[in-house]
């Protein structure tokens, strides 16, 4: 439509529409600088060793033996993780949604807990339990074996921790699909002569397949790009993944930016391909099993097996929560002897991390600052994007969501490297602001998806009627739409806050002395302090996160906001 203002009658309102155009251009410029530029910087850097563009360095990097080992490790960790998370997530989702397993109402929120916790703290707690010499289980089993039976510093150990922490992704997707499924689809299978278990395998499971498959791909790529857990559990055993190699390339002397960029590009291409596949998979089939029917599918009676089912779910929770309890106990002991000793009870560890240790103290303050400001910025940015996309007719609005979704394909470590390369020569480098921007950009897709569903849940007629009542666009948004979505915005703010508090990968690339975040501080403390001190710090972070999560559940229904 050509609506340029050439009218003889001055009724056109050019100021509004031209202001809108300026606004959308600014949004595009902002996304170009924060999303596209860092990524391009990484890709360009890969070809920029020496003068001009060359692929010599790329050949060199991919023929180095330890890099080939790292690729193999990365793939093995990803495969093991996705198998573990897939089996656990689907099983638990089916048990909670479709069986008469006892305690399922209690288990449902507990199964989601790892989703919110920091996997680095998880890795730390598993060290307490299964480190080769000092681990609790190894200590208990010592008398029966020649050497410690469990070694958490291994590919298996890393995959175990990742599997435990990423099962909730598969669980959440599958549960959603199972709960929204049309009950008559299964009923008609039963009427056609299928048994309950035949129905589960031949009808229920295939109908949930898109949800299961897409969440598994998500876990697969996330595991491939994950940094914190391999750093804590791999590097001490000289076991590297692509992400830890990227980190070492930057931190060795002299820093090898080209190598880091090449590895990052490889990792990015890998994750991007799978993520795009996942998005495409979900797009076509997302709503196929969803109906507006008010009645829920019937539960399968498990008979005696229902106690076994509860046992399975209980074991999962034990694997997640048990080590945290061990960590909690350790954090109250002045020295760890392998058993809890009342006489050794102390609060000194907490005192130390809160008030004495400078890095811990700084990490806490820095993270609270960055996460508070960052979450506020993120909610503002995401709501602006969502309103622009869904509540204006501005040209180019359709391109905003795909562009803002790009970071979903980028592992945090790669994004961190991008910001490092892009901004190392600017005054932003070495400040908390660069970390904050990286957080906001990294989790833009999560924020935007949630904001979009909040905005879309408000019927258009509600703001159209404000327009018909004489309100201009801005007033219709601020007086009608924003107040209606404000509870959801609070939840989104808290989700972003929690996510930022436990962020590791991009912080690790961007921190300098003085701008350590809570996770960085934890990783550093783990290097030179005993379990008790790092445990106390880990417990502190966990309590902070859980308090926010409890609050989120208070203000919104739990599945209204999802990641």
């Amino acid at each position, binding site marked *: 439509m050509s609506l340029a203002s050439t009218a003889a*009658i001055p009724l056109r309102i050019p100021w509004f529409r031209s202001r809108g155009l300026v606004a959308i251009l600014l949004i595009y410029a902002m996304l170009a600088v924060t999303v596209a530029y860092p990524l391009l910087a990484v890709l360009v850097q890969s070809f920029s060793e020496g003068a001009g563009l060359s692929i010599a360095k790329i050949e060199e990097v991919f023929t180095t033996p330890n890099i080939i080992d790292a690729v193999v490790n990365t793939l093995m960790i990803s495969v093991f993780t996705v198998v573990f998370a897939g089996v656990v997530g689907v099983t638990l989702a089916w048990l909670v949604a479709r069986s008469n397993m006892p305690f399922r109402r209690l288990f449902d929120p507990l199964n989601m807990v790892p989703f919110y916790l920091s996997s680095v703290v998880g890795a730390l707690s598993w060290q307490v339990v299964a480190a080769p010499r000092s681990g609790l289980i190894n200590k208990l089993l010592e008398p029966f074996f020649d050497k410690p039976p469990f070694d958490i510093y291994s590919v298996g150990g890393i995959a175990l921790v990742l599997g435990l922490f990423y099962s909730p992704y598969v669980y959440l997707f599958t549960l959603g699909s199972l709960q929204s499924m049309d009950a008559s689809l299964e009923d008609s299978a039963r009427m056609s002569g299928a048994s309950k278990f035949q129905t589960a395998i031949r009808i229920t499971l295939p109908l949930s397949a898109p949800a299961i498959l897409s969440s598994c791909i998500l876990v697969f790529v996330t595991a491939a790009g994950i940094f914190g857990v391999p750093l804590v559990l791999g590097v001490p055993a000289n076991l590297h993944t692509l992400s830890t190699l990227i980190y070492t390339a930057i931190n060795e002397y002299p820093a090898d930016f080209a190598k880091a960029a090449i590895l990052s590009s490889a990792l990015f291409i890998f994750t991007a391909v799978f993520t795009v596949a996942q998005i495409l998979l979900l797009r076509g089939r997302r709503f196929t099993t969803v109906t507006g029917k008010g009645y829920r599918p019937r539960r399968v009676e498990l008979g005696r097996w229902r106690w076994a089912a509860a046992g399975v779910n209980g074991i999962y929770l034990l694997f997640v929560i048990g080590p945290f309890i061990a960590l909690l106990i350790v954090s109250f002991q002045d020295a760890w002897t392998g058993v809890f000793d009342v006489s050794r009870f102390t609060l000194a560890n907490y005192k130390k991390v809160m008030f004495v240790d400078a890095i811990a103290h700084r990490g806490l303050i820095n993270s609270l600052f960055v996460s508070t400001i960052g979450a506020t910025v993120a909610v503002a940015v995401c709501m602006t994007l969502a309103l622009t996309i869904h509540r204006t007719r501005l040209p180019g609005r359709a391109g905003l969501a795909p562009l803002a979704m790009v970071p979903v394909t980028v592992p945090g470590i790669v994004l961190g490297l991008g910001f490092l390369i892009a901004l190392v020569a600017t005054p932003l480098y070495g400040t908390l602001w660069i970390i904050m921007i990286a957080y906001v950009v990294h989790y833009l897709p999560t924020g935007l998806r949630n904001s979009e569903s909040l905005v879309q849940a408000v019927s258009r007629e509600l703001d159209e009627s404000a327009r018909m009542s004489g309100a201009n666009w801005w007033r219709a948004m601020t007086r009608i739409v924003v107040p209606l979505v404000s509870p959801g915005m609070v939840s989104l703010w808290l989700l972003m806050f929690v996510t930022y508090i436990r962020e590791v990968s991009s912080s690790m690339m961007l921190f300098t002395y003085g701008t350590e975040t809570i996770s960085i501080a934890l990783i550093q403390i783990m290097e030179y302090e005993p379990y008790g001190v790092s445990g106390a710090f880990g417990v502190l972070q966990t309590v902070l996160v859980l308090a926010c999560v409890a609050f989120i559940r208070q203000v919104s229904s739990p599945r209204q906001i999802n990641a």
Partner: protein
Amino acid sequence: MSGRPIHEGGVSGHSVPVTVERLTMSYGAVQAVGGISFHVAPGQTVTLLGPSGCGKTTTLRCIAGLEVPTAGRITVGERVVFDDASNIFVEPERRNIGMVFQSYAIWPHMTVGGNVGFPLSIAGVSKNEVQERTHAVLELVGLGDLQRRSAADLSGGQQQRVALARALVHEPSVVVFDEPLSNLDANLRERMRAELQLLQSRLGFTAIFVTHDQKEALSLSDYIVIMNKGLIEQTGSPQEIFTNPATAFAARFLGYSNVFPGWVAAIGDAGVVQIDFGDGLRLSALWRSPNPPRAGEDSTVAFRADRVVVRPGGQQSGENVFAGEVETAAFLGTTFDYTIKSGALEIQAEGSVDHPVSRGQAVTVHIPADHCHAFSATTAA
């Protein structure tokens, strides 16, 4: 029907005409509205009537300013609010049009008074005056005591009234209604229809309704615009279009339950034609299409079930009298509904409950020729 002030500080009417010229609305390759024109006189009630997807709501939203048309011109009163030729587009909030939405669009985070007073507070009216006028208009729609109630817990009928009050409170010269009664149950719908009519005649605003309910359209309107596939099929007063549908589509949509394809067998005087259906069945009917009938051309005949006279026994003869057999008979309380098989035709008929005929019985049906409407099949939908 000129308006007069009805309340101190309340609503007063000042109606203006609305003119739509060559209005076109395309979404990519899909044309929702195909260049339609109509005029609404000041204070008149006009209904856009048609099935879903006919472009009626789009047309209404273009008038309101919620959609930017592809082409055409819309004038409200003296003011051109849209004209593609001179690049005029007036934002919806500047058009001074009230609107009642299909979902009512009551803001759940405000009180009833907050909803109704919103247009005034946006316009910068003083707090006291907002209070007063809100109260006046709520009295008008019969909700005077609900001003402080939260808008989240209103019944359907109350929501409808609040939406109406909000559309009227800032004294718009035109009020548009998007299927305002479709979400109410049958009893309430009848009552609201009557109340709307009363209000409109008291306040005298120009009203444009959109509905797919022919009953609603017939009872509410001064003037009806029947739309189909983005084009206007027929315009006219309710009586005109009901007694003289201009197309087979209009006939079908107005509740003519007998619509049969045939061809023109003979052309008589005074617009009477003979339509042949095969099987030796012939019907005299009035030619309604604007183009003159041609012998042998395909034609569609429409007549209403209540115009069919059913008599027991299969032996009478005469013009438009056929022998048939009762296939189905349904008792509807005040009437009987019959399906009568006569040759290839399955005729829908209405019969008196005092002289019923039964299933399988041989009957004769008589359809008076002046109630049979024949249309050229090329213009039929």
